[in-house]
């Protein structure tokens, strides 16, 4: 193929991919500012900020935002406390059941989520976890275990032992070695795990709805009722709000995520 032609084909394919990925998002975002829209015009008839004031003056929606911003950071914290020591153990110790545990995390992840929540219902009724904050936290943390163990485990494993040994030879204690050599080097991987966990909690809708509705509505669960009960534009505004934290995280950690930490984590060793 002539060079110019093949380059043209590539540019065309890239444009199609851009349309495929970004098109729906832009199309939705425009709705948030549309007074009305006549088919088949490609732009709204008139622009307005009215829908934003509708969202900001609706108390139920405000509570959903608060709930989401409450659950996501707590989930990351709880998940880190539970999973990070395990991640270190997977990377640095050989212990009975190690491989079984690693595969167990994977098997737990491959059970269909909806089926899991349906199964959990019986247990949650028995333990009085239905409609409780603790119940929702359990559901959210369960969704993060695979990220919080696998990705940091790969990050810890990638820290060269020779560096740790050098620090030990220089007289540093085990704890000091961990905090001034191992942890800083594994930090980008842990950061990626934290972001994936945050997004997973922020995104979780089915389980939260089953366990928390209608007492505890988060932004994604509120989205379900928004789509059915409000004008299209209100849901569009809410979508933009819901996407803000994620996009901020994307910009902050883009380099680390694309840099292979995520990919590293998904190979059991």
């Amino acid at each position: 193929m002539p060079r110019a032609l093949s380059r043209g084909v590539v540019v065309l394919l890239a444009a199609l991919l851009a349309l495929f990925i970004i098109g729906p998002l832009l199309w939705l975002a425009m709705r948030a500012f549309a007074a009305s829209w006549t088919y088949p015009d490609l732009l709204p008839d008139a622009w307005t900020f009215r829908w934003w004031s509708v969202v900001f003056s609706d108390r139920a929606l405000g509570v959903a935002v608060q709930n989401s911003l409450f659950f996501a950071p707590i989930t990351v914290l709880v998940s880190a406390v539970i999973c990070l020591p395990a991640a270190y153990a997977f990377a640095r110790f050989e212990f009975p059941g190690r491989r079984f545990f690693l595969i167990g995390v994977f098997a737990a992840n491959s059970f269909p989520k909806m089926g899991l929540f349906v199964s959990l219902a019986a247990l949650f009724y028995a333990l009085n976890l239905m409609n409780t904050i603790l119940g929702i936290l359990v559901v959210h943390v369960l969704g993060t275990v695979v990220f919080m163990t696998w990705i940091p485990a790969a990050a810890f494993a990638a820290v060269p032992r020779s560096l740790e040994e050098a620090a030990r030879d220089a007289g540093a204690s085990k704890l000091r070695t961990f905090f001034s050599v191992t942890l800083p080097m594994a930090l980008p991987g842990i950061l990626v795990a934290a972001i994936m966990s945050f997004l997973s909690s922020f995104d979780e809708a089915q389980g939260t709805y089953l366990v928390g509705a209608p007492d505890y509505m988060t932004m994604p669960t509120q989205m379900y009722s928004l789509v059915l009960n409000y004008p299209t534009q209100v849901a569009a505004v809410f979508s933009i709000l819901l996407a803000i934290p994620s996009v901020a995280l994307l910009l902050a950690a883009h380099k680390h995520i694309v840099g292979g930490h995520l990919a590293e984590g998904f190979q059991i060793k």
Partner: protein
Amino acid sequence: MTAEVEARPAVVVRPAAPAAAGQTRGLLMALPPMVLIAFFIGFPVVLAFGFSLGFTGGLNRTVALIGQNVHTAHGIVPTLSAYAEMFTNARFLGDLVVTVVVTVVSTTVVILLAVGIGLYLKFSGGLIGKLLSALAVIPLFIPVVIASWAILGFYSANGFLRSVAANLGLGFPVWSYTLVTVVIGSVWTSLPFATLLVTSGLQAVPQAMIDAARDAGASFWRVVGSVVVPMAGVPIIIATTFTAIGILGSFTVPYFTGPNSPNMLGVDMSNYFSAFNQPQQAVVIAFIVFAIASGIAAVYVWANFRSAKESGAV
């Protein structure tokens, strides 16, 4: 960006020197997430499996009392009648076929796109390469609920594609609430993860190998087919299995963008549980989906062991 991915050697985990102490400490440190999974996933799943086989006592009592159309086992002999009911239900069988077809089609498209983007980055890079990989990662950061809803609007009767076509005086089909949008939505949401895994796998193929093949006179496609893709085989298999398992059990995308019937089994599970109040049937569907997912998972585990063997860890 992705070009910065280094060709890292596979990390081989070796036990630390004092083996016995490390064993106990490692086990203790690894326990908390395992206990969490065992208690909140393993235990309920075993209970639910019992329920699906007709055991309605113990912790299953409440759910069996609330639910309708519950099949009960006689004594300790399990009954398969709940499974038999589903497998003679024409609507379920149709949805099973739809689920498998959507999974296979979407996974194929996702992997082809991911490999295409990865190969372009590996061989050409440049601005377009960076743009492609950046584009492919965007969906990772958009909550699935929003994505489904945005896609529904984009392909709807008054959506973008129909508007453009109408302005040009052409007709265009309505894809909203059809299986086409389910496939589109599944591809959209699964693309970032697969692209990250595949791209990083392709980047790790040593340039020297490619140069050697080129020097020996191999064409571009020969290099891709006989050197690059086989060497990145394990990451590609891992990406494929994860994508397939994710789509197989998906709920939000088919629920929002798909037709009422036939639709995917994730939606059926929710319907049987909430709308029809038949929890046993919901659980039966979950185990049928899990059985298919286990088949795919076996491939994943096999690929990992193969890679561990190659790197000398086993």
